[in-house]
């Protein structure tokens, strides 16, 4: 029994082990690395990536992909900034962009499911559309001056020992916990895994494959909108060039977190650690000071390579889908 559980959790264990190894490396090499705030900053600085990557996890678990999330984040910031500038109540603005994000995702999911289109292309077009709408609203950055937003952005929740978290980081944690519960304990979550395990088999079993497929894209769009809200707390501006390339970081976080791109296997907790690993790479490079930031991309690429090769080895030992 124990060995079976270990086998299933092996990719996750590897991810966590890697994170701890990098943390240990940093602690040994740089002074002040082990301060709690350094680790909390990992979550604070990457809170929006975390939210988006969690949404992306569900999509990838069904064997799909969502390339539009970065563009949706940017669009969310633009719409938020515009609404706030027009005098909207901040909470109403947040609600509005969340609904828009969910609808956007649901529309993509509908096209993919109903007309059997490739997720890659549909979400690619979605990315063009969202980014294009950003530019239509404005090519300049729109500052956000709403006092509620400013207050939220500056708020710090102390967690003891002088360190603190932002509201954004708390939102990210809440999203992770909620997603874990959805994935493990709800029918929708289990159907997501089923679809990833074998769509035609799941259909023959009578599971609601169609609704689930639309649902994951809705979730991803919602997560992207929420990530956009978190980003507005962080940046206090709306700008078309926010989050360019973020979808790739999200996919990298999901893969490094142990989820198979083919679908069916993976944990939300893994994605959290994937995000933390991406964060710690940047922190290590910043602490070093001598390496240019281009190295971040190269290291992330190398890590992706390592994890994908590991996944291939792992796949080689477990049976393939029919």
């Amino acid at each position: 029994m124990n060995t079976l559980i270990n086998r299933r959790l092996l990719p996750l264990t590897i991810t966590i082990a890697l994170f701890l190894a990098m943390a240990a490396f940093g602690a040994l090499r740089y002074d002040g690395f082990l301060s709690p705030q350094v680790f909390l900053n990992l979550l604070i600085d990457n809170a929006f990536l975390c939210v988006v990557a969690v949404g992306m996890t569900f999509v990838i678990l069904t064997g799909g992909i969502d390339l539009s999330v970065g563009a949706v984040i940017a669009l969310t910031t633009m719409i938020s900034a515009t609404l706030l500038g027009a005098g909207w109540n901040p909470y109403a603005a947040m609600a509005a962009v969340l609904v828009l994000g969910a609808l956007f995702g649901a529309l993509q999911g509908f096209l993919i499911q109903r007309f059997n289109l490739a997720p890659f292309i549909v979400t690619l077009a979605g990315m063009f559309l969202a980014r294009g709408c950003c530019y239509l609203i404005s090519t300049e950055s729109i500052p956000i001056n709403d006092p509620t937003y400013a207050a939220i952005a500056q708020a710090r929740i102390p967690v003891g020992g002088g360190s603190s978290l932002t509201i954004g980081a708390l939102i990210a944690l809440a999203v992770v916990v909620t997603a874990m519960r959805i994935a493990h304990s709800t029918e929708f979550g289990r159907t997501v895994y089923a679809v990833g395990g074998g769509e035609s088999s799941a259909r023959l079993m009578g599971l609601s494959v169609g609704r689930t497929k639309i649902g994951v894209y809705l979730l991803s769009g919602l997560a992207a909108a929420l990530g956009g809200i978190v980003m507005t707390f962080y940046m206090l501006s709306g700008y078309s060039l926010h989050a360019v390339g973020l979808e790739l970081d999200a996919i990298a976080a999901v893969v490094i977190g142990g989820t198979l791109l083919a679908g069916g296997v993976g944990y939300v907790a893994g994605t959290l650690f994937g995000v933390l690993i991406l964060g710690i790479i940047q922190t290590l490079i910043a602490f070093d000071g001598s390496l240019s930031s281009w190295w971040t991309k190269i290291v992330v690429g190398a890590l992706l390579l390592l994890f994908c090769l590991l996944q291939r080895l792992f796949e080689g030992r477990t049976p393939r889908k029919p």
Partner: protein
Amino acid sequence: MSNVEPEIVLRARDITRAFPGVQALAGVDLTLRAGEVHALMGQNGAGKSTLIKVLTGVYAPDAGSIELLGRPITPASPIHAQELGLSAVHQESHLLPNLSVAENICAGRYPRRPWSRGGGIDWRETNKRARELLAGLGIVLDVTQLAGGLPAALQQLATVARAVATDARVLILDEPTSSLDADEVQALFALIRRLRDQGVAILFVTHFLDQVYEICDRMTVLRNGKFVGEYACARLDARGLVAAMVGREIANAEKPAVSHVPADAATRPPVLAAKNISRRGQLKPMDIELRSGEVLGLAGLLGSGRTELARLLFALDARDSGDIAIDGNPVRLDGPADALALEIGFCPEDRKHSGIVADLSVRENIALALQARMGLRKFLKFSDQCALAEKLVAALGVKTASIETPIGQLSGGNQQKAIIARWLATHPRVLILDEPTRGIDVAAKQELMREVLELAQGGTAVLFISAEIEEVVRVADRILVLRDRSKAGELERGCGEDAVYAMIANAPGAPA
């Protein structure tokens, strides 16, 4: 023996369904009774799978009625059919390999925890239910393990268990034994008998005639979409059944084929000789020789290593040990391209997955191997390809509208013939045929067997693999028997099926 007629659970009358260009069903009746195993028989294209799809709500019938326990029903979808009490296990039903056995069985019907205790799926209860359900059917296994780790037979049993978990009154099993060996088939039959005794009406579709007579009580025969008749198994023997399916009397036993191995065969080195070849986990070290003009039959149960041996000889899989020699000269065989260059051909077991390229035309499929051997630069001109394809299509009797038709549109039997044509085009000295007659109707089977004999007559060394021992015995000059992934022994032509069974089973009295 009870004198009471078992109650009629399902009565389908006058079912009719057409698709563009073909009348799949024309006035078909089906009556299923409680506590009875009913066989649905017919050749490929007779309408069996269409009828099942109508019963399970995948298609709506153009005409006709379905009554369940006296009430008319119109299943609108497989889920709806399940709710009505009609469960089906299709040929393509698979478990989800990444979920546990318990999850597979309970998917869509999870027991929930009450909101007071947090809501969500109750996993302990799920595992418990799955365990109890399987135990009630005589199956004991660890329900928390991933379904993908189960052997194929247990997966099949678990699939059936899921199908009956919904208190089904009717269970439809579509070709459930295709990938099972004899022991596993018996395990499945035990389960079927248990369900039958519980009063479930079971519809059993198979093309293995012996299985029909072993497990079924009654059978319904379809031919070309029409209802031929319903018979009690005790009243219609195998010959009569085949006659009903095919529409004409077929000579029971063909004349045994005449051996045409040239007299001096023993003195020449074998065309292909493999010594000590093995692959970890798939085949233990063994020797095999193929001689020109000889048909070597390969017999054994599923899992005995037949296909594995074939794949090693053709270098589809890398061998862990052993040498291969052609005409006595050792050769390097690193991949199928090398084998092809050495004039070896291989017709795979699974033509859909490893045989046809569905979107390419019949002509392109036939020319593919020959072109692959000729390489990139020497390109077969279009006219040459056409001539080649036309010739082989005519010779093998491949039914196709034209050689430009995408091969995916042909029926299974004709696809098989086209793949054999592909290898014939390369004029191989060695041809390995892995289950060439699987899933093909009776008439096409006879034609293929005749082709095999003609090939050998022309000097090709043929390795003929089939699960149907009767075929192997009829056509082979020598039979190599495999057991548990190693060689059990060799038999000569004329040994009879019993000798083969005995050697497979390693029973006393088997020839040494």
